[in-house]
């Protein structure tokens, strides 16, 4: 459950486009200081949800309070306390990184001196100081993402929205982006809501995850809770007497099956439950030669709740991103 007070509260948030229900009665509670992930494939309604929370889209139905303000009735107040890093690259290519940051600062009415200090500090943080005076059109994808991050932080937001912050980046760059986000979080203690279709990202960086599918939130919890919810860790045991071991496990209420010369079973809260099971086995004179505990992956969690694997959805969004990048280039 949320730590501290609520940064984002949504009730029955819905967006309908004609006959398409993009977001379907979404409820959210994100606590102050949380790093909250919306996980789901392309078209699940993540971006639309963020759009409504960031006052870009008007909800068809439902309410949302962001930073204590209603997104429909007090959008201007919401805009003051949030920072947004959209999916697209929004920096002006004809301007330098520095000029982009100064422009953003002026949109927030930040006084010039303060803006200069802040821009320099942010560029330093995302390691773009050397390229501050270079036009954005010559930035690489990773550099652009970092600049977008800096732009979203220029107003020291209390709540930061990141829409697919690592989309279209290679693995190393993705890791780098996340290390910046973590540092920012540590330094400024803001609430972060991000969308992603990378399960590892949600798993690694989020304090809580909401799994979205077809406009609905199908499950919310910490990564741990989500994994536990599908029946615990997977334990593999290699014993000398398979039949006797199975019997002992059955009396403990565990249904183990033989697989490839080993016993395999799901175990809730394995780190505390496993020692007792081992004690019971040894007490019955069974030798445990080898033991392995593995966590279920988020992929299995996702499969459990949506009936689909997330991997299938991944390719299409990468393609869409590449297409947009090409379109941008067509401009010059």
């Amino acid at each position, binding site marked *: 459950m949320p730590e501290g007070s609520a940064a984002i509260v949504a009730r029955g948030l819905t967006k309908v486009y004609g006959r398409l229900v993009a977001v379907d009665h979404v409820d959210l509670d994100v606590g102050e200081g949380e790093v909250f992930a919306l996980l789901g494939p392309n078209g699940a309604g993540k971006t639309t949800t963020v759009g409504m929370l960031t006052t870009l889209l*008007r909800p068809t139905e439902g309410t949302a309070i962001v930073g204590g303000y209603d997104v429909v009735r007090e959008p201007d*107040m919401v805009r003051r306390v949030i920072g947004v890093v959209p*999916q697209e*690259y929004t920096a*002006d290519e*004809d301007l330098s990184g520095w000029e982009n940051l100064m422009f953003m600062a*002026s949109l927030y*009415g930040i006084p010039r001196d303060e803006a200069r200090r802040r821009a320099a500090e942010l560029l330093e943080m995302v390691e773009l100081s050397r390229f501050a005076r270079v036009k954005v059109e010559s930035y690489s994808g990773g550099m652009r993402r970092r600049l977008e991050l800096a732009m979203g932080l220029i107003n020291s937001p209390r709540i930061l929205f990141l829409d697919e912050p690592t989309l279209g980046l290679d693995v190393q760059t993705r890791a780098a982006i996340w290390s910046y986000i973590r540092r920012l979080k540590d330094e400024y203690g803001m609430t972060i809501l991000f969308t992603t279709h990378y399960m590892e990202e949600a798993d690694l960086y989020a304090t809580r995850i909401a799994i979205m599918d077809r406009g609905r939130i199908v499950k919310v919890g910490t990564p741990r809770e989500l994994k536990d919810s599908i029946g615990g860790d997977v334990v593999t045991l290699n014993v000398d007497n398979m039949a006797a071991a199975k019997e002992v496990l059955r009396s403990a209420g565990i249904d183990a099956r033989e697989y490839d010369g080993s016993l395999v079973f799901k175990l809730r809260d394995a780190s505390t439950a496993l020692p007792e099971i081992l004690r019971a086995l040894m007490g019955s004179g069974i030798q445990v030669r080898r033991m392995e505990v593995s966590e279920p992956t988020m992929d299995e969690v996702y499969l459990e709740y949506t009936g689909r694997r997330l991997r299938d959805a991944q390719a299409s969004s990468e393609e869409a991103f590449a297409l947009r990048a090409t*379109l*941008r280039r067509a401009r010059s």
Partner: protein
Amino acid sequence: MSSRRYGPLHGIWAVANRELIKWYKVPFIMGISLVQPVLWLALFGKAMNLGNLFTSSSLQIPGLDLPSQVIDELGRDIMLRVFGVTDYFSFLAAGMLSFIVLFMSMNSGMSLIWDRRLGVLNKLLTTPVPRSNLVIGKSVASVIKSLAQASVVLLVAVLLGMRFRAGLSALDFLGTYLALFLLSMGLSSLFLLLALRSTSWESQMMIMNLVNMPLLFTSNSFYPLQMMPWWLRDVAVFNPITYSNEAIRGLLLGVPGVNLYLDFAYLAAFAALFTGLLALMARWMLSR
């Protein structure tokens, strides 16, 4: 951060300033947009020297032996009656000021379309700048560019021999700029209005090309209202360019019979109407 206060004009200058930085970084574009009006001035204005038509050198009617003095006098009289000045070049030069303003202001919508296409607009819409100020800022940038370009055209015209009226004062220039400002504000807002929902720069270009010439030729930029057929005159009296031309000719060239109150009232109404409409429409057309 949330305690920061924002005035009603918050963001207008921030948005305008971005456009202007992009503009003066590329002097090439500045130069390109000057080519057309300067060509009109230098070629058309100089070649179509109507004043010359009515001088003794071109008016030689066999059998009619009028002293050249009389013909010259007659020519001047005709020019004054039709154009209000004796040389056509100055008449045209004044018209070219509105021309360059039209030319520049029409582009106002393009930057909005690009911002929308590239996603920049989505970013801008999450900042505390009111929707109306986002577009008015673009309008303001367009006005500043237009006035800067008009100054260059005015300078070129003077170098090529534009003659002002006797007793010209600084106030006349101030009035000229006011007229151009109002015209530009109205036109910029109009073209931004057309671009509010658009994502297609092709269609915006089409609109620009479509209305460019008609707007120019249904005004008194090239010829005075008196010379027009009645149907064209009926159209021209609605064209704001007619009013800015008239005001500027009255102020700079001393063309008689100009009603400055009417001119400025019309231009002010034009600017206020479209700027107001733009601000109003932006509120709900930019949000989805």
